[in-house]
């Protein structure tokens, strides 16, 4: 299967919240609207001025959450979605802080709490269907398709219409994502994380982890060397002491003999 993605055109969204509702329905969550993502809201439509902005997992190409998870419970799949295997999760919540978009949420009220986040309707997509939110969107503000096609479509829209901000949010961010946003208002005004971050975050920790073999090799030989050195020094000291002792004994014997 080709890598899938979603394209969300903020200029088209009318704020009907159909995506939000169908998502809650599919997952069996209570229907009322929540202002931010939560354990029972995997996507929300937020009002920013006269615009409506959808929030959800960006399905990063090189996801920070997946690289952070100590047991590999989160994985980027070939179909594009970043999926969560609750059976592996230990509940350390590192993924929640590692995600640059603050997406993963936790079931704080449960006794066996799991992490929750959008998985781009992974099962539906495997069955050949589009995501539920894209299917239900009445104005085509959210569309689903192959990642390459959607990127091309986004570029085409920007080229054809000067009203768009000259940027596809998600094309470069943290090394690229599988959810793209188009807007006619600067993204920072809509609450998007816009600090310069084109680098995938996992490369940062990979750089640190890359030092492990060096530390072990260099540190190990250094310590072994130090040990050898102190041993040697002690041996020499002991040998010298023994030598002195021998001499004393000899002298003592000589004295005795004479």
């Amino acid at each position, binding site marked *: 299967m080709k890598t899938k993605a979603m394209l969300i055109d903020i200029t088209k969204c009318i704020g009907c919240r159909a995506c939000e509702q169908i998502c809650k329905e599919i997952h069996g969550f209570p229907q009322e609207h929540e202002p931010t993502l939560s354990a029972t809201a995997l996507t929300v439509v937020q009002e920013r001025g006269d615009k409506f902005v959808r929030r959800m997992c960006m399905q990063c190409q090189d996801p920070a959450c997946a690289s952070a998870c100590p047991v*590999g419970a989160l994985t980027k799949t070939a179909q594009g979605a970043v999926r969560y295997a609750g059976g592996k999760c230990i*509940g350390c919540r590192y993924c929640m*802080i590692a995600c640059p978009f603050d997406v993963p949420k936790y079931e704080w009220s449960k006794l066996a709490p799991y992490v929750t986040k959008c998985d781009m309707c992974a099962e539906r997509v495997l069955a050949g269907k589009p995501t539920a939110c894209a299917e239900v969107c009445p104005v085509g503000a959210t569309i689903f398709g192959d990642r390459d096609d959607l990127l091309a479509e986004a570029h085409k829209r920007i080229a054809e219409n000067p009203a768009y901000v000259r940027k596809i949010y998600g094309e470069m961010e943290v090394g690229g994502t599988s959810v793209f946003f188009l807007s006619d208002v600067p993204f920072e005004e809509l609450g998007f*994380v816009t600090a310069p971050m084109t680098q995938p975050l996992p490369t940062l920790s990979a750089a640190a982890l890359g030092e492990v073999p060096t*530390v*072990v090799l260099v*540190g190990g030989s250094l*310590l072994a060397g130090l040990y050898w050195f102190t041993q040697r020094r002690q041996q020499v000291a002991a040998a010298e002491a023994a030598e002195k002792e021998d001499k004393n004994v000899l002298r003592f014997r000589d004295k005795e003999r004479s």
Partner: protein
Amino acid sequence: MTRLRLPKITLWRVLVGVIFAAGAWATYLRFVKGFEVATNMSNGQPWGIWVAVATLCGVGLSAGGFAIAGAVYLLGMERYRPVLRAAVIIAFLGYLSVVAGYAWELGLPWNFWHPLVMWNRSSVLFEVVWCIILYTMVLALEFSPALVERIPWAPVREWYLRWHHRILIALVLIGVLLSSLHQSFLGGLFIIFKGKMYPLWYSNYQTTLFYMSAIPAGMAMIIMALYLSVRSLNVRIDLRILDDFSRIITPILVIFALFRFADLYKQHALGYLFLPVEETAYFWLEMALFIAAPLVLFNLPRLRQQPIGLYWASAVLIAGFMVHRINVSITSLERATHAGYVPKWPEMAVTIMLVAAAVLAFRGAVLHLRIFPQTMQVAPPPLLLPRMTGQVFPARPSAAVN
């Protein structure tokens, strides 16, 4: 006269009772009512003081174990041998309480063993978990002779101790490596939070910073524990060892401070040093307690001469160290998350209970095992010993003395 058989009610016993009762109630809340009732952690601040204090401080404060084991075995600093076992058991108990703390901290604690079989080599946390588990095992082995000595059956005892002596150097070497790795990788956990952390605490060199800050903290911890052992557990050691340890602290703190500010300069964060915001106050509190105050206190000749002076200077340093770790893991994220996290009482109660359990276990070990050299009890009063205490002990001690 049944009354006489009841244990005496002292202030300390009452305090211990209160700590464990509160801890038990908090544990009930955590496991029967869940996180939401027992903690103030939230989606904005998923890591509270169980991570900031029970893990980040707990591991850091246990750094004295590898430092002193390395000094004695690898660098041949025989004069520290009398406190070696104490340092190792402090570290061992520290790590045990860190590991135990995960029963409360993890959302699905019964899956704690997953990292052993489900590997994610790109995760810093994965490396930390492995190092901590392996190092706790190394510490258990390093410490085991103190228990094995108590076995009444001589052949087993001697067989074990001979075998132990053979692998000891390798154990110490591995221990130093594992410690160095995870002490720094605890800082490495924060590297991936780029863009979320307040600039005064984000660093690409968080690994180095964590490593460097752990050593003085670990030393201070040992100074405090040794002082208390001498004061109230009738232990006899040359208290000038404490003075030696405190000498190591000053240069490391100076290097840490220089590195810290050079790093702030490199991350273009110097402009944040005096901004009129809350973070600035936390930053300078950290600098005052962790750097400035200890540097002054540990270098006042008057204060150094008295063990109790070193004790209080160490207490200040440890407080500063805790502020540092809390700042990195909690304060730094507040601006991005607006979580307004303040720990709830059960979080405090569990943390305090873990510390109390470690302290009680240390006390029990000192009283019932051979942690400190017994020979000293027939030696003259400790403060009158010549400077080189190492002379009292053979240069190549037998395995049994260790």
